């Protein structure tokens, strides 16, 4: 029995925790900036697209039982395509995780750790994630599953505790900049679901395709819901989001939370939860990058590769020189690399794999019929 098989809850937690880490950062802010008051509508729209996209891709995945996108790439183009795909995925995961960590660390530094070097805090995150991977994938997934409910509850609490401060009129004009910006150019906001890349990699850890479909749909729905809540809270709370304060948009919301006169600034508590989210996120990303590399290089040892991945992420965190470069990487590079890898490269590989499989099955069927006729 494969000891790395995940239950539904653990698998959904893995996907959601990766999504939530983006929501905590500037994802809601980015959507709001591009679509303004149509942001909630845009979230519903892109969620529907992603859901349909996933259901269609899941059909293409059906002939490949418990195989991930790397296995499909190998099936389509042999060892070469497998290695190329692994490298592209690895670079994407390492780069994006490095940038996200840097972005979060930068925010923490702005909020309260002004005297601590950014590199040191980044290193702390990476070391914890490396340590987590020394405990094994099972521990990482179980830890995620424990943390996930608390993280989701936090977002609900944020939304509910500010309910009275919301100004519903801010939702108007409901189409924001217009139909074109909301539904045509706004469709590119599906990059928000770029971390669903995990759904292409998680399949070997699931029991069957039925479970994969269930996990995928629930993860997308829950992620959409929390993205929707975050965007709605931001929209209804602030007259205009500039995004220029250099802190997390969700953090800005939490600063407005107060319960009576006694608890007036609870934002620090959310930092604790979000730090846990990012430890979890980084551990998951390293886990899957490790799996990718082990598959590509046909090695069994974890330790050396984990350290190398950690080092690579740390190097990425050293690249941006200032906040604008971080934002550029977060909003532009991430956007286009996600669109390419998740929505173009992966789907192309899958479709090709599906067609090849069908063709083979067709040949096999014809051959068996010919043999039957001959006999």
């Amino acid at each position: 029995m494969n000891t790395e098989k995940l239950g539904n809850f653990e698998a959904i937690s893995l996907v959601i925790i990766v999504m939530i880490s983006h929501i905590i950062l500037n994802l809601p802010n980015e959507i709001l900036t591009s679509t303004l008051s149509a942001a909630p509508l845009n979230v519903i729209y892109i969620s529907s697209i992603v859901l349909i996209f996933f259901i269609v891709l899941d059909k293409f995945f059906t002939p490949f039982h418990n195989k991930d996108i790397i296995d499909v790439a190998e099936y389509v183009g042999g060892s070469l395509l497998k290695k190329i795909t692994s490298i592209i995925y690895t670079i994407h995961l390492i780069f994006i995780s490095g940038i996200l960590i840097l972005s979060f660390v930068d925010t923490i530094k702005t909020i309260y750790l002004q005297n601590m070097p950014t590199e040191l805090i980044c290193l702390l995150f990476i070391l914890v994630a490396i340590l987590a991977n020394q405990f094994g994938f099972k521990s990482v997934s179980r830890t995620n599953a424990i943390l996930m409910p608390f993280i989701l509850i936090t977002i609900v609490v944020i939304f509910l505790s500010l309910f009275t401060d919301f100004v519903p009129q801010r939702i108007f004009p409901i189409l924001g900049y217009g139909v074109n910006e909301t539904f045509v150019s706004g469709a590119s906001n599906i990059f928000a679901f770029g971390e669903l890349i995990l759904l292409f990699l998680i399949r070997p850890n699931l029991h069957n395709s039925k479970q994969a479909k269930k996990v995928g749909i629930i993860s997308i729905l829950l992620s959409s819901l929390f993205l929707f809540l975050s965007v709605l809270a931001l929209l209804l709370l602030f007259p205009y989001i500039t995004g220029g304060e250099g802190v997390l948009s969700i953090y800005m919301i939490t600063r407005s939370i107060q319960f009576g006169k006694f608890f007036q600034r609870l934002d620090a508590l959310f930092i604790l939860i979000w730090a846990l989210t990012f430890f979890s996120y980084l551990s998951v990303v390293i886990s899957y990058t490790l799996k990718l590399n082990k598959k590509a290089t046909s090695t069994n040892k974890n330790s050396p590769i984990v350290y190398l991945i950690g080092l690579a992420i740390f190097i990425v965190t050293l690249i941006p020189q200032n906040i604008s470069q971080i934002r550029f990487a977060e909003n532009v590079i991430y956007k286009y690399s996600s669109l390419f890898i998740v929505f173009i490269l992966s789907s192309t590989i899958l479709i090709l794999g599906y067609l090849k499989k069908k063709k083979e099955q067709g040949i096999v069927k014809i051959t068996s019929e010919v043999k039957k006729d001959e006999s």
Partner: protein
Amino acid sequence: MKLIDKLQNFFSSIFQDDKKYDFVLSQETVGNTQPEDLLKKQNIYPSIDVNLEYINARYNSLINSDIKIREFILNAKGKQFKAFIIYIDGLVDTASINDYILTPLMLKSYANQNNSPQIISEAITSNISVRKVKKFNIVDYIYECLLPQNNVKKVSSFDDLVRDVNFGNCALFIDTINFAFNIDIKKFTQRSISEPKNEPSVRGSQEAFVENLRTNTSMIRRNINNENLVIENIVIGKSNQNNCAICYIKNIANSSLVAEAKYRLNNIDVDYILSCSELEQLIKDNPGTTLPEILSTERVDKTCANLLQGRVVIIYNGSPYALILPVTLFDFVSSPEDVNLNYHFSNLLKLIRGIAFFITLLLPGLYLAITIYHRELVPTELLYSIVATRVSVPFPIVLEVLMMELSFELIREAGLRVPSPLGSTVGIVGALVLGEAAVSANIVSPILIIIIAVTAISSFSIPDFSLSFHLRVTRFAYILLGSLCGFLGIGVGMFIHILVLTSLKSFGVPYLAPYSPLSSVGNHSYFLKPVWKREKRANFLKSKKPITQEKISMKWREK
């Protein structure tokens, strides 16, 4: 003494070297262990003289004061044999030896002298009497007629015999017979069954285990009236071959769990173990962790409840504690009182204990994180009062916390080690004098005293001693992390802590079961269900009988 001698002594004492008494342990030669090895693994000889010599050598009976060897002439059916018994004075019932071993064997009673054959059956046909006579066998005769004891075994190995003699049996050797009679005649002074001192309960049973293995197993037998309760003995240790009992209910406990427990116990290669705590460390899954992975209890009712759940219990001779396995983290936060109370009260107490768990672990670390990095979290009025109390304290806040934690640990350790009449004095000196004086001398702030006191009280509400210890140790890590990076540091600690917890297993059962991995929580959650709804055994135990009671247990309610 003559004057000249005195003078001589005087001058010699002045000019002589100082003679100090200096004892140094000399290195023993390794070769002297060989005869001991030769003595072992030996079967009993037919010659009584050789046996006597062997026993004398093995027991060092010439220098051992409590080893008693009594030689005598055994009378059986008019025949006489040389014999001897060996026992350890203080472990046996000497009256029984006199009355039920030596008397029947030595006295020449009529029945014993009568050498006529034993008739099994007799048939008379045509005035001819046909008798079936049993062939006389001295061994059978002694076993069946001369040893009126309920527990007598024939043993041919010296090792087995010596082990039982060490436990209080008496061995009888007879000339020409190549085995000995191993007679159970134990009687020794032991502590009587008393109340559980470390796990008190108001409404629960007031019986606690004692040091004697058989007394402990008998208490379990009395409480579990089920013939499927199996109590197997396993010998542990080379120099001290002590008995350990492994108990389980055959038709409830998972077979692989029982096999694993036996496998671990049978594969312990140590010279000696003196307590079940040492045994616990030798069989736990992750010896490196500070978290307890086996539940240790002195309560008989708790042990029985766990046996009936499908768990395995290990009792070690000489230790008044039973080891229960497998366990989860939540078992260590359960109190023996829980099952005896109405489930509403139990759950309230469990909730309080859960909060105490987090306070014990995190409060000083959180205090540091908040006061150093996250002051905005504290309401303004409270922040003013904290700052006001700290104005005159010269130390950094982290040093203040560490000093107070260390002082508290000292008081606790001193309170445990001093004789009990002085315990309260240590408490008074520690808590009142030091606490009050430290605040008056501006060494610590009053608010910190409150924080440390609340942490200490919370730690006392954790029912398990080992878990409480783990929390005390880990708390220092949180203090350092909280002071270094605030909530980020606390987050690091929590994340690593959760990772450790999720990676642990106790005899194949995940440590955070049933919550992680998420299995069926319903039948064994942290909070107790009403008695009538406890229909299933814990899923993670994979018991042979998963159902404990029917859906409707209060059948009297049904018409």
